């Protein structure tokens, strides 16, 4: 099933740490150009799934294909060619603390394009920093001088440095205030539309799910129990899904998304 429209294909994944089995027989596929939200209770292995896909965690069993190429047991030098086609935003930004924000953005470009002109490199860093909504004076700052939200934006700028086709975001809005989180959602959506990205988005944020995700994958019982749009998921009769989307927070987020959608429709008319 390595047709062109599937960017990530995970089959029969099994991960365990000692006696604790995190995934068992997990299947998931991500289509080109979509924003796939991954949700699940704490400890259901959302981050482990992401780490398995990007090759930071070797699964016990199973097959992981990215861009139609198997990622399991691949040599580092071969994997490099696939890695340059994706960008990863870790939970806390994972910026290199000894480099400034702009230098952080330049790291991936320097790694793959050694003979890049220094002037152009600085310009690229500058517009990437600006594109992610950071102020101009953030470029020469060190990560320790930034707030949590700015660090996430800087991490996103670095993830986008190589103009990837695929973007992994690990809880991008966690720890941001609601306004910052909404801005980040808008930013993700805008970049996805402009650059034609495929986004693998781990989140707990119901507003994010409603606002920007094309499909949502639900992790529970050590596998993906359902994938679909939110209305499709709501039609399912799984207690966790019902509680997740129909709980007090889920309802508020759904109402907000509904209001916004009808507001936009009215403005458009």
């Amino acid at each position: 099933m390595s047709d062109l429209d599937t960017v990530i294909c995970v089959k029969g994944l099994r991960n365990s740490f000692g006696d604790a089995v995190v995934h068992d027989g997990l299947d998931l596929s991500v289509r080109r150009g979509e924003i796939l939200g991954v949700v699940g209770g704490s400890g259901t292995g959302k981050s482990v799934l992401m780490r398995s896909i990007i090759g930071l965690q070797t699964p016990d069993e199973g097959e992981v294909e990215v861009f139609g190429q198997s990622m399991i047991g691949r040599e580092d030098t071969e994997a490099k060619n696939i890695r340059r086609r994706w960008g990863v935003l870790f939970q806390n930004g994972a910026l290199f603390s000894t480099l400034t924000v702009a230098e952080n953005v330049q790291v991936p470009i320097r790694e793959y394009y050694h003979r890049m002109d220094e002037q152009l490199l600085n310009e690229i860093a500058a517009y990437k920093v600006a594109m992610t909504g950071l102020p101009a004076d953030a470029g020469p700052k060190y990560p320790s001088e930034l707030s949590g939200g700015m660090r996430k934006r800087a991490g996103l700028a670095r993830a986008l440095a190589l103009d990837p086709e695929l973007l992994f975001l690990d809880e991008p809005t966690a720890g941001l205030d609601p306004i910052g989180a909404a801005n980040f959602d808008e930013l993700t959506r805008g970049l996805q539309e402009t650059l034609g990205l495929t986004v693998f988005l781990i989140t707990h944020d119901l507003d994010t799910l409603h606002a920007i995700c094309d499909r949502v994958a639900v992790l529970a019982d050590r596998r993906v129990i359902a994938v679909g749009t939110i209305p499709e998921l709501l039609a399912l009769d799984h207690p966790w899904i019902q509680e997740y989307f129909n709980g007090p927070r889920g309802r508020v987020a759904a109402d907000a998304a509904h209001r916004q959608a009808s507001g936009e429709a009215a403005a458009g008319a």
Partner: protein
Amino acid sequence: MTASADFTVEDKPEGRVVRVTGALTLAQLRDLPSRLDAVDPPPSVIDISGIERLDTVGAWIIHRAARDHNATVEGGDEDAERLIEHVSAADQPVKVRPDTRPPFLRVLGEIGDATAGSLRTMVGLLGFFGALMISVWDLIRHPRRFRGNAVVRQFEVVGVEALGIIGLMSFLIGIVIAQQGAVQLRQFGAEVFTVNLIGRITLRELGVLMTAIMVAGRSGSAFAAQIGSMRLAEEVDAMRTIGVSPMEALVIPRVLAAVVLMPLLGFYSSLIAIIGGGIFCWIDLDLPPVTFVQRIREVVPITDLWVGLLKAPVFGLIIAMSGCFQGMQVKGNAEEVGLRTTSAVVQAIFLVIVLDAFFAVFFSSIGWI
């Protein structure tokens, strides 16, 4: 595979037209940006209808050329136009590195910072000592708050678990002293004084000093790292809000363990060093152990033992205080924990050696020679 980026120049009545073709992406750019800059006279129209693929870097190149030469961009499809618009909206001057001061000023500033920093540390350490004394007094008045379990745990970590490494180190040092002493003294036919050397130097100086260095490296650093990471995780703040004094829960058990155990460890270290030296004397100088012990008892005055044992608790206090003080100073990020741990060890060893010099002069002048 798409063709790499290239362009052709054409002069038309409305001005010079540059037609860009191929994939204008980061991977396929090659030397296009510099060649495009070198077009002379500059283009007034940039035609991008021949572009097969475009990413943000390509869009930036087009935007830059158009901006610099005041040219218009033509022939792009909707996606390309949107991408260029997106990139041009992000066109703002961004510096890559913070401004640097001239080297002379920077060096001067760093010297000043370092001086002020070490003064602040000394004052801080003194303040910490005062706070510790207040807590100790509180604890003496309310002995029920004393945390026996924590103290016993620290005894184990600081003392029992250190026995192996301190023993091995002392044994080897004893051998080295004996061997070096024997070689030098043999030149005067005075090998027999090797025993004096071993007995006196280990009990008076090296036993306690080497133990202090080992404890500073083993436990002082651990104190700083433990308390530092607890500060980062806001555990210390949590303690305060619950009403538990971090001084009583964290600092006093560690300080007490170091103060009580340093004399014991120092004495143990001296003993093992003497055994090591004795074994060397037996093998190399044919001095039987019985004679060796007898000689030790004759030549080492009891005051040498007091010198070592009196210094040890003070060293223990210094080591534990530096560790806990530096740990408590951690704020901000994980990098700070590493820095503070390093300074805890450096500070402890430095202060121990400075104090040791004072002790040496003091004990000599009161006649404990």
